[in-house]
């Protein structure tokens, strides 16, 4: 049976660890991931939630909505913020692209999400926020 969760948290850096731990724990509902796969999920969630805090809200106040859905063999994670949005999503997804080089952002957030998850979709409306949808399949189900 499919299962899901929804969690609303304030955009605080101390919640990044909590968010990735929740998703990794929930992912176990989808099946027996390897430790490497679970760590990839944790890292991708960490990147998306950090982006929402740093870029969506410029480290100001706001909420992040974290949703997860599992089916046997896969997990979908949806991370939404209601912040400034991204004007050019394609540009933002380029490796090493960053709007904040002065703060030592290395610009690899989306690259990590794309490398560590199987599908990444980004929807953004300037002034309204950004939604990142990421899916990962258990390795056995990819081969089928």
């Amino acid at each position, binding site marked *: 049976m499919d299962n899901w969760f929804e969690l609303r948290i304030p955009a605080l850096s101390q919640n990044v660890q909590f968010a990735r731990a929740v998703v990794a724990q929930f992912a176990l509902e989808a099946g027996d991931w390897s430790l490497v796969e679970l760590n990839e999920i944790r890292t991708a969630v960490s*990147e998306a939630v*950090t982006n929402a805090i*740093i870029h969506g809200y410029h480290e100001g106040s706001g909420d992040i909505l974290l949703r997860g859905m599992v089916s046997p063999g896969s997990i979908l994670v949806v991370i939404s913020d209601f912040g400034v949005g991204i004007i050019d999503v394609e540009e933002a997804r380029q490796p090493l692209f960053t709007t904040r080089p002065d703060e030592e*952002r290395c610009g*690899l957030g989306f690259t990590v999400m794309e490398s560590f998850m199987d599908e990444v979709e980004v929807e953004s409306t300037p002034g309204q926020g950004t939604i990142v949808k990421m899916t990962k399949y258990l390795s056995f189900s990819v081969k089928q």
Partner: protein
Amino acid sequence: MEIELKYRGNVLVVTLKGELDQHSADRFRDNVEKELDKEIAMHVLFNLSDLTFMDSSGLGVILGRYRRVNSAGGRMAACFVHPSVERLYNMAGLPRIIPSYDSEVHALAALKG
């Protein structure tokens, strides 16, 4: 995340334990910067054996310190990159600029040699 700092000659050894992300990145940067400002260390060694998580916020801080140390003529090395961190470490091309060794002794020898 815990940060331990020590000197081995002109090498600053930074041991990171736990999870390095946006929340711990500022403290990590400030601690290392404060030591580099003392101008005791020429090189920096990161011991990552107990660093069980790192994301690109952590990478950004490491790369920022690399730029500082490298522009002053120093080098960086790492030892025991944890399996959980290894994929990101490799993906970002860090082994090319911050080579990883299997022990602190080997890494120190490489930095001093």
